[in-house]
């Protein structure tokens, strides 16, 4: 999980062009200063590309917080 944390953090800093961006599990997208629509899309597409997976359109938009995003990621990364 720590690896996922670190990679998400790195992607978020790139996507939102903020080197001091710190992701926390309780952080809600769009409620964070600077988390805009285009940045969100950039962030999510980069997550998909980095982890080699694809979210559904619902998942793309509607996750409660970063903790939920990490849970979705972990599930998708588990071998079937």
């Amino acid at each position: 999980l720590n690896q996922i944390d670190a990679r998400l953090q790195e992607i978020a800093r790139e996507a939102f062009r903020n080197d001091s961006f710190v992701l926390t599990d309780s952080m809600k997208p769009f409620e964070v200063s600077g988390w805009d629509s285009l940045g969100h899309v950039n962030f999510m597409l980069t997550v998909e590309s980095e982890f080699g997976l694809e979210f559904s359109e619902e998942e793309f938009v509607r996750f409660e917080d970063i903790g939920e995003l990490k849970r979705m990621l972990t599930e998708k990364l588990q071998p079937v």
Partner: protein
Amino acid sequence: MTVTRAWSGHYPDAGVTGGRPTYVEFDRSTTLTFLHEPANWPTDIEMAVLLCPPFGWEEVCSARALRTVAAALARAGYPTARLTLPGTADGSGGPREPDLLDAWIDAVGGAAEWLRQRTAASRCVAFGIGLGGMLAYVAASKHDAIDDLVLWAVRNEGRALLHESRSLSKVIASDFPEDQGDPAALDDLELIGYLMSSDTQTALSELQLSAHVLPDCDRRRVLLLSRGAQRVDQALRDSLERPGAEVEVRRTNDYYGLMVRPEQSQPPADTIAHLLDWLAQGSAIQMSRPALQRGTQATNREVPEMELSDGVIETPFGCSGTRGNVFGIVSRNPAAGQATLALVFVGAGALPHTGPNRAWVEIARRWAGRGIPTVRVDLAGIGEAGGEDPELVSDESTYESWRVDDVRAVLDQLQGSGVADRFVLGGLCSGANSALQGALADPRVCGLLLINLFLVTWSSELIAERRRRGPLADRSRNGGVGRLASYAERRQMADAVAAFDELKERDTEVLLLFGTQEALYEELVCHRLVDQPGRWPNIRLERIPSRDQMFRAQWLQRHVHTHLDDAVMRMLAKLPGGAGRNQIMDEVDT
């Protein structure tokens, strides 16, 4: 005056930055391009560039900035043409055309062929972004006019591109409930003001670039540009490197600055530098990678106009403006005879004639088919108009009084060319203001179509106040708001009353269309200016069930079309004898 088939207007020299609108006819279709020519043509053109735009919201955001990219390439000595895809912007047809994906690919190939012949360039580079890059790749596999490729943010699979487009659309729609899609059109895909038919979706989802073999790949150069941290598509890279193309991968950091919002979009300076560097390297490499062997050249030719269905033809329009050339497209039906009036739509803010704003194109073609010439114009700094000062897209600039002079110059040229003697002006937001002020200044204007008019006269104080106070709905319910209004608000209301009185005096028919959160509408309500029956019988006020200023959802666009059509019919009916309306009603009925 008679309207002749050959457009007697002129298109002023657009210079390197503007690009010359050029219709290219090949096979069965005609494609609109904008050709940016070097100021001093080199004797031997090594490379010409065909710029293939992205699709969807990214096209809306980047249109003006990509004009700057093309201008920069032309300045460096590379003739560059920007392509308009069929069914988008001012291109032919609509989004429900059959085999649209094939039409797009053919348009890229045909335009590349034309560009090579027009410039006598040794090599043609197709520079595509998103969908434009996918089309460029497939076109290169089918047309030998394209040698090299620059692919920015391009996916190997159409399915992945659709996923991206749907996801972006979903994110934007989550802010606007009215954008949630049209239940009446379940098979079609709505993408932020764009429509993609189910046929096009199916064709695109089946598209896989690596399945298309690029002939003579070892003679080709390809630049793959990433976007920020997102790597280039590895499958795409492999499909190019394996057969021997010279592939270079570079990272860019300005993609999202280009795509952020239409009014904030920044020309991608770093990417332009990458492009110029890569193109310059091509001169040295050409010896080892000779241009492709060309087959028989396809027939293509530049034509002065584009023929559409219902007898409509379109021609570019231009006239000199105060701060830059005005650009426009004239739609008309030469068989319809002398027109009673013409519709002139003034572009809004930074929005090009595509996506949510393609409504103007559709309305123009519909009314032109009915015999009413219709012109959609961009004033300086907007869309395809001249004026490179970035200040021209600021809110304040779009309300400056010189724009009224430019609107009148458009009317002068249209009248001088025999298009019409009377006009209905229309526009959205700042375009509505230019139309309103144009009507107040010019007696030839007999009707107004004003959508989401934001201000009657510019007031930075009132705008700041509106931001601070938020919606006025609660205040209006409580009544007595007029007494609490600021000086800026009262001044705006006084200007509105003066304008409405003047329009009544002139018997100018007016449609005011307001969304659900339009500040000016709320102020008019608070000042009890909308519930005075009989005070302004020439003005009809209608509401649009949308919070946003532009209309992305198809059902909303249809809603607005209906209001505009009804208003135009009323305006025609007011012409002497109602002859105009009767003639049009016959057209509509048949």
